[in-house]
């Protein structure tokens, strides 16, 4: 390490120490900022001690990273990883700065890092990864300029710097077949149905053009969104042979999923097909790094707490499940999860349109609320600053009788007024914060919790 990097590392570490141990503040951006200012190359110096794996994509990277870290920890003594949200350059530098390598470690330590799509090139340049994990690319309404192909181009710029790095790819997502990359590849995906069907994705699906000739892809089956076993009818293009595959879905519920990967039964303590993709990615990385199936199963079983996104709260005699919604692909996955609920339930949907929610509410029309008619849903209510948009959306979806709660101060009585014991609350980001502060005030949850 150069003298300059040593100084930068020291400054970064002491800033972290003061923030963390003296001021008791979390966060890793400031130490990274200071250290980078003193030495722009500090991260590449720090990274020399690690085998680095980068995880990127628009959805699922946080959970995939968390779960993969648990899987890798079954075999590796030191696995450092960045906390959720710290996925830009400075946050990652902070993570590298504050990590310590045990003195008598006989293994080379691993750094498993979640990277924002737009930062892949800059981060990769410094960290020289041995592998990239690609989860998926969906259009996010928050990212106004983000088109899926330009997002993927940004990721490609990072990958192209390292043609020897292994790509661990969600092969069910056709966009990742673009770019003609020479890298060694590990493909993961779903093979839970025979490759016999011939269908198109629903109209409202992004990213359904064949990478070979821009014809519309056909599918043998679709898991969700534009993901599945795709093929072209105009040429030879098709999904590649999978290295690791979900071979069977045994039981899907809102609170756990039981499935087979390559014939081996595994379980995760959270619902939602998208979480099975996250688990499959963790499995693929684990197997690539030599973790055994039994160790992976152990990691999945013993780490229920990584699945923090979906929160269960008791409000009086109601069992409340709180879920975040922010874009159509995510909201449709929440709906699909609710459809696996065998008990009667109600839905309280809360919509705000502040910057952190996405100021355009149009996405609710791309969300398939109509499909909830095939579920145990008994009652619908809407709330939040933009309750009217949701009210009309749900009315036009065939739910004419809805209570409305423009003011979330009345949310506790809204929950109590729902006719079923189980109530789902689906809320956008700032509506979720307002909801949580009401639940805190009423004493149903503790004051800590969701990070801003």
């Amino acid at each position: 390490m150069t003298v300059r990097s040593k100084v930068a590392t020291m400054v970064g570490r002491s800033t972290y120490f003061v923030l963390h141990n003296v001021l008791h503040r979390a966060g890793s951006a400031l130490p990274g900022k200071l250290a980078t200012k003193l030495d722009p190359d500090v991260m590449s110096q720090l990274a020399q001690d690690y085998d680095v794996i980068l995880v990127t994509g628009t959805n699922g990277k946080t959970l995939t990273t968390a779960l993969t870290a648990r899987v890798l920890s079954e075999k590796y003594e030191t696995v450092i990883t960045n906390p959720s949200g710290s996925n830009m350059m400075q946050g990652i530098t902070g993570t590298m700065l504050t990590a310590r390598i045990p003195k008598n470690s006989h293994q080379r330590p691993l750094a498993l890092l979640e990277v924002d799509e737009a930062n892949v090139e800059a981060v990769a340049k410094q960290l020289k990864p041995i592998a990239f994990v690609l989860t998926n690319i969906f259009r996010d309404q928050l990212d106004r300029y983000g088109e899926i192909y330009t997002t993927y181009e940004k990721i490609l710029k990072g990958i192209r710097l390292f043609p020897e790095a292994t790509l661990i790819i969600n092969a069910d997502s056709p966009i990742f077949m673009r770019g003609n990359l020479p890298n060694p590849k590990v493909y993961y995906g779903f093979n839970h149905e025979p490759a016999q069907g011939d269908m198109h994705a629903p109209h409202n699906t992004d990213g359904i053009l064949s990478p070979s000739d821009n014809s519309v892809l056909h599918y043998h089956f679709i898991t969700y969104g534009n993901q599945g076993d795709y093929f072209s009818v105009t040429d030879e293009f098709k999904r590649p042979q999978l290295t690791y595959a979900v071979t069977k879905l045994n039981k899907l519920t809102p609170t756990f999923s039981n499935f087979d990967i390559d014939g081996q039964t595994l379980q995760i303590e959270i619902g939602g097909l998208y979480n099975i993709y996250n688990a499959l990615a963790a499995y693929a990385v684990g197997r690539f790094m030599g973790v055994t199936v039994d160790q992976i199963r152990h990691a999945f079983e013993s780490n229920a707490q990584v699945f923090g996104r979906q929160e269960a709260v008791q409000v009086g005699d109601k069992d409340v499940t709180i879920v975040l919604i922010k874009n159509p692909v995510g909201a449709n996955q929440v709906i699909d999860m609710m459809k696996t609920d065998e008990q009667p339930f109600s839905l309280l949907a809360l919509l705000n349109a502040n910057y952190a929610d996405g100021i355009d509410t149009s996405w609710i029309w791309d969300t398939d609320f109509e499909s909830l008619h095939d579920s145990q849903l008994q009652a619908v209510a809407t709330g939040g600053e933009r309750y009217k948009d949701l009210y009309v959306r749900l009315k036009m979806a065939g739910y004419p009788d809805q209570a409305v709660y423009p003011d979330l101060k009345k949310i506790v009585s809204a929950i109590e007024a729902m006719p079923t014991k189980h109530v789902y609350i689906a809320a956008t980001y700032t509506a979720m914060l307002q909801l949580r502060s009401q639940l805190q005030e009423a004493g149903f949850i503790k004051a800590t919790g969701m990070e801003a």
Partner: protein
Amino acid sequence: MAKYQINVAHLYGDLMNTYGDYGNIVALGYYAQQLDVALNTTLVSLENDFEENKYDFVLFGGGQDYEEQVVSADLPNKAPAIKRYIEAGGPLLGVCGGFQLLGQYFLLADGSRVEGIHAMDHYTLNQPDDRFIGNIEIKDPTNGDIYHGFENHQGRTFLDDKERPLGQVLKGHGNNGEDGGEGLVYKNVYGTYFHGPIFTRNGNLTLRVLETILKRRYPEVAWADQIAKIEPEYF
């Protein structure tokens, strides 16, 4: 089975599908159902011909730059039929990219030119480092109605003298941020930059378009009286 049927073409619905444009069909169906009218929606995309006599309404939504270029390359196959449909008074709603592609051409942010079908003569320039984003309100000069929506576009569209804007901008940017117009009306074609989507938030407009559709298809029925009884959603 509903008493009446109308056929809707969702033009390139699998490629031009950003920002909830599909909601326009949901809204149309919601009001139609109250008149005992069922909507039969067909996706008309790269692999299909557009048969102009089959449809009573066409939705042509907006897409991402990449898909819009693929659609532009395919459009010459369908353009003659779309033009015949428009000239015959066929009702059509073009949103964002769909609105732009009905005209002469549009420029992407990087300056590359994407060819439209020249059904009408409006054209769309770019604004390399900016976008018009935000809530928008316009006033329809023909009836004084105020329409609400959300605009999000890079392109600046300029109308030809045969076209008139759908409304005058009260709040927001509109077609180009210069002439105070938003959208276009030509025969029974409506163009707009409104997301929201426009038919979900502006029930009066939706019911007027629905009336046009139904009068063309079932001229013997007294639609106006029945439509007057429907409560339009407006927000």
